[in-house]
């Protein structure tokens, strides 16, 4: 079993950067090799966490503008570790911006993802309670003393904090807990064009006004709490209640006596950064190693995660077995990583990529990512996206292929410059294939038969055993085609 002192090689460092940030360009990789303190798991984690931080302020006149500003920031690659975190937390605290429909609050929502992923999970939850987009999205602004709206309270428990069931399949809460928590959120309102949240006392549920609803308590004689439940008005009724509810949720224990929220969010993070179905023993190991169930410090949790065996499990080389773990790249990961390794930059405000056709037309990044099934700021619902095999459908794969086809087009305004990536003097087909798979970071992911298939394509079925990359036709068609073919392979879809 490895730990922070486990030595890593260059390939493993690239894997760590790919998973915790995005597949690095050769420049980014060189920078990492220069800056890393020691070639160990701990060294890689420290390097990643030392990447520049910045609270992103993606402002725009339309949601599409805001989307493009955010994606532009991510594609710049200056704060990639934080960007990857932000994508995770965006999915975790999923808000569909087009449903909320407000640019300014969306800008603040993005900023909150960046500022809080660096701190405590409890503070993050408390901040999202009063995020203006979230308040609109889950009807907090319609939650009144007379007509409590339970939407936010339910999703807070189910999706943000503890999950419906624990690791042993036992329920984490009952309907009464949702109804009670909803009372705490009654009366919260927005003003000044949604820039500010405040508690309207006249719409808040005070116990004195609703004696029939009983005391404000959660988890009656369950989950580590005493008979009669735990009160969330220990500091009085009103503004403090929603913070106390979060504090209580963090103390909630499961049927193994473990902190439910710690296991819940650690599992989500681990599955995002590693693979689906991680064993509970590894989850507990990461929690214990980081002290997350006490400190709730997200960066510490992430460091332990990045030093754990599960973080490196998917890096294993071919041939694979039925037990080999792999994770499907999500579309943003796929797009950013591909543009990094091919040293491509999108053009203009709409982040356009040349389509490589004779009309010189372009296609914006958003159109590409949408065709692959993921548009940031517009997750399909409060559950976020459907990850892993959920990305795999014919329609979505065609979206990936079209992106790769456009990206690797050399002709007619295409910006692809393979001559800067590949040794143009190389004539051996096998060596050229190895260069291309190496650039794409999957050189050890193919079986011998699959590598032969790539060689076979390059050599026209063995008819051209010596490749002259300086021949225009070979260069335009076969070399660009080889990049496209490799990027559309099943191996390139996973990591």
């Amino acid at each position, binding site marked *: 079993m490895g730990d922070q002192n486990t030595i890593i090689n260059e390939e493993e460092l690239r894997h760590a950067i790919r998973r915790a940030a995005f597949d690095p360009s050769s420049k980014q990789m060189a920078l990492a090799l220069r800056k890393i303190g020691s070639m160990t798991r701990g060294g890689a984690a420290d390097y990643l966490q030392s990447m520049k931080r910045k609270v992103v302020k993606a402002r725009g006149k339309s949601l599409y503008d805001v989307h493009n500003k955010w994606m532009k920031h991510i594609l710049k690659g200056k704060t990639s570790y934080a960007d990857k975190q932000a994508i995770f937390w965006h999915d975790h605290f999923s808000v569909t911006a087009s449903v909320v429909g407000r640019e300014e609050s969306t800008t603040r929502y993005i900023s909150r993802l960046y500022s809080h992923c660096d701190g405590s999970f409890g503070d993050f939850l408390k901040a999202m309670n009063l995020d203006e987009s979230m308040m609109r999205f889950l009807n907090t602004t319609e939650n009144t003393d*007379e007509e409590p709206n339970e939407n936010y309270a339910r999703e807070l428990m189910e999706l943000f904090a503890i999950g419906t069931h624990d690791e042993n399949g036992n329920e984490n809460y009952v309907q009464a807990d949702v109804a009670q928590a909803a009372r705490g959120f009654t009366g919260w309102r927005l003003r000044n064009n949604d820039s500010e949240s405040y508690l309207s006392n006249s719409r808040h549920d005070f116990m004195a006004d609703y004696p029939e609803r009983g005391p404000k308590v959660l988890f009656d004689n369950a989950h580590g709490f005493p008979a009669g439940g735990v009160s969330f008005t220990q500091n009085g009724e009103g503004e403090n209640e929603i913070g106390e509810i979060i504090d209580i949720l963090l103390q909630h224990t499961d049927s193994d006596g473990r902190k439910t929220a710690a296991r819940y969010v650690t599992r989500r993070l681990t599955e995002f950064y590693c693979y689906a179905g991680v064993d509970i023993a590894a989850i507990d190991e990461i929690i214990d190693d980081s002290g997350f169930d006490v400190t709730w410090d997200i960066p510490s949790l992430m460091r332990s995660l990045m030093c754990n065996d599960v973080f490196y499990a998917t890096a294993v080389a071919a041939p694979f077995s*039925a037990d080999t773990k792999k994770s499907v790249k999500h579309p943003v990961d796929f797009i950013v990583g591909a543009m990094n390794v091919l040293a491509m930059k999108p053009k203009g405000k709409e982040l356009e990529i040349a389509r490589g056709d004779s009309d010189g037309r372009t296609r914006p990044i958003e159109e590409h990512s949408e065709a692959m*099934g993921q548009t940031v700021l517009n997750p399909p619902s409060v559950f976020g996206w*459907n990850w892993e095999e959920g990305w795999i459908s014919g*329609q979505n*794969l065609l979206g990936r292929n079209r992106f790769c086809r*456009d990206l690797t087009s050399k002709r007619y305004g295409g910006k692809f410059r393979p001559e800067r990536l590949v040794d143009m003097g190389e004539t051996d087909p096998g060596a050229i294939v190895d260069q291309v798979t190496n650039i794409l970071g999957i050189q050890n992911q193919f079986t011998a038969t699959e590598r*032969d298939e790539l060689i076979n394509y390059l050599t026209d079925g063995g008819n051209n055993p010596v490749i002259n990359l300086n021949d225009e036709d070979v260069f335009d068609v076969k070399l660009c085609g080889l990049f496209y073919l490799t990027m559309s392979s099943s191996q390139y879809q996973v990591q």
Partner: protein
Amino acid sequence: MSLTRRQFMKRAGVVTAGSLAGPRLIGNPFVSEASANTIGDRYQVTLFLDGGNDGLNTVIPLSNEAGFRTAYETFRQTPGSGGIRINPGEEFVPSSPMIDPGTGTALGLHPGLQALGSLYDAGKLAIIQGTGYPDYSLSHETSRNRWQRADPTAPSPQPGSGWLGRHLGQFYGPSDAPAVSISSSIAQEQKTTDTNVLAISRLRSYGFPFDRTDSSDNADFQAAYSGLSIEAGNSPQPGLALIGNTSQATLQSTQDYPALHSTYEDERAGWSQLYDDLNSSCARDLKEIAKIIYGVENGAAGVNARFFRLRNGGYDTHADQGGATGQHYDLHEEVALALSLFCQEMTDLGVFGRMKIMVYSEFSRRLPQNSNGTYHGSQGPMFVIGDTVNGGVYGNHPNIVEEAMDDRENSVYSQDPGDAHRSTDFRDVYGTILKHHIGMDEASILTHVLPADVGPDAEYWTNPNFNMGYL
């Protein structure tokens, strides 16, 4: 090895449909008839109402034999201050009787569903009331997964097959594509790793992105892509195998499917216009299904889909639900008009007699309304539509009287045979379709598709009834 195959294909000239993955089961016209457990020349369409359709404002109690009307009026306030009640005279009452079998309560439909009236009157629409599962979840995601995987005890979403996917996986192989999700992703109920489900949003833009300026390399590229996909499809690593198989089936389908669009638009222009006139996502999705079925019926090469799935969203009416007009009305009207048109076209194509359309939602909504909407609830009505359906009302209306409500203010799901309001397990509805429409035998259904629960009879589904009578 790969070299030989590729050279073979180059010699063969254009790589044509059916040549990429070897012999295909459903490409063979004899196979579907030879296998008694498969759908044969019939079609199955599933429409998912996403978000939790309010069943109590879909099938509305009009009379008070069991106290349902009184309860309805208690829970649903009159319009004016956010009320969502359908007042007497506002509901749609078909000409054929619509009576709750358990209590004799007269029923009506939401006025938005009027366009389904002629199907009901003609005995082609079955309403199965009170369908659900024990110990219902109020989570969209959990409940959706339980319905779509037909696993009522699944604690939380996990990867896994859907109920239709398990049927498909049992009878079709990796080189078949018997099902289509009209979506960019594969619907959970169709999920399987044993055969292919295509995901197609719009046929018009469904194509493989070859080099757009120089087609000289396309055959080589295609052969190599196909070779790599097949290799990955054979990988023991499950993720690579899934992607490889999906890639290969997709490559195949991009050769076979896109032409269906132009053929349909040319040859069915009048019908196409009728869908366009409805200008709704439900109509647009059903038109894509019509295009594919038109292709299948006309022997389009490589087009063999028999199972279709579409979704209509927006049913999570926590606020501004509306009564006889408004949000819920618009949703009902959209679906009713689109389905009605689709059934007319299927009749025109001579297909309707071989088709069943199933409509469901992940849950109904809570009995008492909130200020102007409704919360997540329990059991609700399902629709099954088809020319050979024995139309009418099946299953019992949930017992909605106040005293019978559970502590979550919903009607109680019960399998107790002694309960006059006994609920219907969704697996009975699925099982009836699998047995009487798709043609599976009961033992095979129970072994492969719908495993029974173990639990007390009063609560759990221990006695399957795949002969509900509507088929």
